[in-house]
């Protein structure tokens, strides 16, 4: 879909010009107040821009030049809000049916599919006020999907939930993306959710689109560094499952270029593609390769130093590992004593136990 907006609201300016893929999840990422929700509301038609063009593969929503501005209820979208916004006077089943055109017979199958996908068959006879936050949000997602949208908008659908509920809902969202072939715009400010779900990132800053590309590109770009500085900086890389260890609960991941990373067991089929994050604090550097018989470290890679970023209390070393880039955070003391230089070849060590099931997602 094409988004080309350049508009001003009171004292806020929003400029986005990009093309979003027709399948997969595009994360709209940025600080609060950066215009994420505004962008989604413009696409939904809840707000009107001054000028520009918003067009999906099937429908033109807004075109200033052609004087097109389709009203909200005629845009074929599903919108999942931060709060579930279920209708309190209607049962779950009636909520689900609200936007659902049940006239076509084939839709019964679709209904069943969505109900099962989201595990909400047990809730149909209940009123929204008796549901938990996670259940409410699942019903809200189901309600949006049953409208058979051509585009799904999600505005921080997890942010109103507590941590366990978030983890409960994430697999559903992931499943959704795989089963349904429709573009999803997903507003978030959580790096975890981006890692878990997104295929693309659209990075917004103070109303301006800074970047829009696939997750790995944006993630490892300097534009994302300020974000990662808040949390622990980490690198995102592509991998696929190579084999399981015969004796120990470990899995070998192929990072490409014949680099193999052993991590705690991942139950996935051989060849399954995944996305993996490695925190800079979990990577240490050594000048000499130590044999595995004398160290607990299971992963040692020959890398090249690409860049050394000296900060107040530590140094971030950017390393080329095969086709990927990883970061290592070390002390300034170590930096001086090892006398590291750019382009130098050095061994990076990664503890297998440092990568747990929150650090990878199948893709």
């Amino acid at each position: 879909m094409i988004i080309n907006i350049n508009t001003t609201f009171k004292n806020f300016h929003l400029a986005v010009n990009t093309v979003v893929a027709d399948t997969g999840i595009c994360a709209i990422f940025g600080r609060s107040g950066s215009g994420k929700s505004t962008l989604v509301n413009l696409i939904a038609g809840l707000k009107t821009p001054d000028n520009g063009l918003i067009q999906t593969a099937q429908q033109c929503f807004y075109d200033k030049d052609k004087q097109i501005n389709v009203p909200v209820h005629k845009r074929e979208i599903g919108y999942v809000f931060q709060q579930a916004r279920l209708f309190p006077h209607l049962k779950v089943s009636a909520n689900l049916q609200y936007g659902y055109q049940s006239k076509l017979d084939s839709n019964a199958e679709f209904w069943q599919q969505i109900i099962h996908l989201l595990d909400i068959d047990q809730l149909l006879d209940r009123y929204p006020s008796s549901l938990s936050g996670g259940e409410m949000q699942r019903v809200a997602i189901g309600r949006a999907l049953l409208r058979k949208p051509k585009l799904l908008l999600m505005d921080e659908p997890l942010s109103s939930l507590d941590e366990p509920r978030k983890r409960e809902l994430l697999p559903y969202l992931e499943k959704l993306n795989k089963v349904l072939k429709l573009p999803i715009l997903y507003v978030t400010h959580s790096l975890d959710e981006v890692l878990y779900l997104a295929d693309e990132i659209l990075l917004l800053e103070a109303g301006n689109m800074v970047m829009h590309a696939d997750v790995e590109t944006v993630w490892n770009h300097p534009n994302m560094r300020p974000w990662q500085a808040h949390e622990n900086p980490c690198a995102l890389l592509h991998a696929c499952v190579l084999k399981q260890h015969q004796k120990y609960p470990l899995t070998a991941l192929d990072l490409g270029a014949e680099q193999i990373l052993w991590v705690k067991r991942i139950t996935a089929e051989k060849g399954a593609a995944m996305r993996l994050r490695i925190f800079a604090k979990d990577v240490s550097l050594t000048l000499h390769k130590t044999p595995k018989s004398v160290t607990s470290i299971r992963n040692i890679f020959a890398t090249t130093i690409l860049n050394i970023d000296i900060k107040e209390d530590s140094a971030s070393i950017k390393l080329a590992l095969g086709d990927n880039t990883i970061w290592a955070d070390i002390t300034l003391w170590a930096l001086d004593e090892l006398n590291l230089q750019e382009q130098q070849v050095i061994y990076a060590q990664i503890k297998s136990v440092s990568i747990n099931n929150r650090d990878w997602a199948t893709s």
Partner: protein
Amino acid sequence: MLSEFEIQAISLSLKVALYAITTSLPLAIALAWCLARRQFFLKPLLDALIHLPLVLPPVVIGYLLLISFSTQGFIGAPLAQLFNINISFSWQGAALASAIVAFPLMVRSIRLSLEAIDQDLEQAASTLGANAFKVFFTITLPLATPGIISGVILGFARSLGEFGATITFVSNIPELTRTIPLAMYSFIQTPGAEYQALRLCIISICIALLALIASYALERKVHKRAQNG
């Protein structure tokens, strides 16, 4: 048990109140919606006009109705000439007087409940493909039901108790315009009719109590449905 005279007064009172409320309810909802949701020029004036009957002495309202709806009045004259309708000195006139004094109470209560509705829900409905019409009838109106019910009860009660505007506008004609309060007034004016006045007084209390209990039960039911089923 009840005398024919009392039955007449009660049924007339109920008829007048029922007509007054049912015919003015759609307009009350429409105006309440305008006041709750729309910003427009002269909105304070409309607001004041709607609330005027609440603060004006009922006799003033009755007098204004009399001069405008009598056969010589500026509304009454064309009505009589064109449609041969004359509502002064008839039960319809009593219903009109009741509707006007009850109107602000209804609008006020409906408006408050409309303002309390989370407009995010209406927005959500529109993203689910509902046009403004469907949103209003499937979301807004059902959610405002408690307020509409209490508005109707308030209006109904006010209408049953209407005295000043009614007696000024449609006078106190037995069988035609003599509602319970007017009948009581007549008894009080008649020496030796204290017993009849007392009976009407008790009847009034019973009707009022019944209405309150009914409204309480209804409101609870609606509230329960809206809250947790």
